[in-house]
């Protein structure tokens, strides 16, 4: 209790002391204001500055700033005018304001550059997303091990796909119209991709009709489209399993007699597989050779790991 009262007393003392201390300062200040008011009419001059500490500072400051401003103005204008000799030159220079050709070019170039970059990055991200989406964790969703025979009668397995991109198509040599068109397209795609990215893509046709498509038949058939196309055939069960792994539907008529003439129904997609043998994208009939080649080359360009360019060379 006593301590609080002491405190209060102390505070009061302090309060009392301060006005007493300030009083002598305040009085001259008040006097100064009066003097300013009286002398203002006669002259706005350093005499005011001398009259009071606060106002003097302000007034002096104002005067200084004003002086600096005028000085700056004269300095800057004189310097810019020094470079431009005639009034016409000045006018010509100031005509367009801050907009001139250099600024416009820089603006357009920067804008265009940014736009191109972002468009490119967006497309790349989308492709990467597709590639990653289809990159199976564990067992691949499309594709898998197979054991077939190529057009030269040599064994060809899923391991032969590794190291390069492959474009896999299921078809058969007796196909009336779609397969020949698609194989022509495949040859075009292969050429275009080779032109852009080098020899990193293997075009492969797997037959859906192993009964009639022997290695010799395939060799002769595919040579007409492109000599680079690898034709795969094999035992019926092996072919059927491969098709199943690639989610390809095909139907050979159930009871085929030797010499019988028949067609095979099958799904028509190009399967793009990456150098690790994983499925990337299916390319349908609606793609033109150019569009498909672009899709493939873009994926190939995204690939960062090494490619075995000379594997089949």
């Amino acid at each position, binding site marked *: 209790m006593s301590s609080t009262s002491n405190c209060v007393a102390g505070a009061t003392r302090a309060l009392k002391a301060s006005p007493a201390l300030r009083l002598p300062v305040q009085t001259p200040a008040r006097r100064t204001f009066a003097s300013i008011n009286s002398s203002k009419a006669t002259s706005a001059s350093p005499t005011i500055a001398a009259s009071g500490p606060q106002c003097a500072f302000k007034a002096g400051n104002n005067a200084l700033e004003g002086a600096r401003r005028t000085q700056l103005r004269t300095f800057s204008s004189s310097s810019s005018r020094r470079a431009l000799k005639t009034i016409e030159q000045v006018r010509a220079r100031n005509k367009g304001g801050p907009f001139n050709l250099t600024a416009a070019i820089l603006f357009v170039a920067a804008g265009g550059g940014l736009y191109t970059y972002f468009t490119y990055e967006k*497309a790349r991200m*989308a492709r990467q997303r597709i590639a990653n989406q289809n990159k199976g964790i564990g067992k691949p969703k499309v594709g898998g091990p197979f054991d077939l025979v190529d057009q030269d009668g040599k064994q060809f397995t899923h391991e032969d796909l590794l190291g390069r991109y492959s474009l896999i198509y299921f078809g058969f*040599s007796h196909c009336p119209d779609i397969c020949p068109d698609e194989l022509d397209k495949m040859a075009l795609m292969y050429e275009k991709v080779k032109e852009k990215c080098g020899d990193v893509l293997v075009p492969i046709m797997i037959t859906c009709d192993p009964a009639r498509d022997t290695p010799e038949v395939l060799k002769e058939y595919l040579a007409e489209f492109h000599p680079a196309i690898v034709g795969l055939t094999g035992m019926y069960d092996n072919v059927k399993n491969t098709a199943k792994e690639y989610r390809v539907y095909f139907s050979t008529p159930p009871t085929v007699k030797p010499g019988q003439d028949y*067609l095979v129904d099958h799904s028509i997609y190009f399967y793009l597989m990456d150098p690790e043998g994983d499925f990337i994208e299916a390319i349908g009939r609606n793609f033109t050779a150019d569009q498909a080649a672009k899709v493939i080359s873009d994926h190939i360009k995204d690939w960062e790991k090494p490619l075995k360019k000379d594997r089949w060379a």
Partner: protein
Amino acid sequence: MGWFSSSTDDSGPKKTADGAFVAPTKTTRQKCYESRDAFFECLDRNNILDSINTKKGRDEAAKACGQADQVFEKNCAHSWVEYFKKQRVVNYQKEQTIKKIEAEGGEIIAPQLPVGNSK
């Protein structure tokens, strides 16, 4: 039917020893497509759509375009002839359906490229 595509006739698709057609080459395919187009043109002229599925159609086609049909059968494997004749009907129906949908104000959007189509 066999005598249209007998192996003694060099112009049509060849047959192997067991009687099957050999795989067609570019030339035989081209020849087959040409005779198919000629036959279909004849059907168009005579307003015949279906030359295979109904007896009436078969008879009409044989009467109006028998000659072209024979050439068609000679130049193509039998399975192809069947396939093309059926495809003609299917394609026509497809066209009609598309027209119908468009007449009703619907729109058919062809499947687009998923990515990479920005040029």
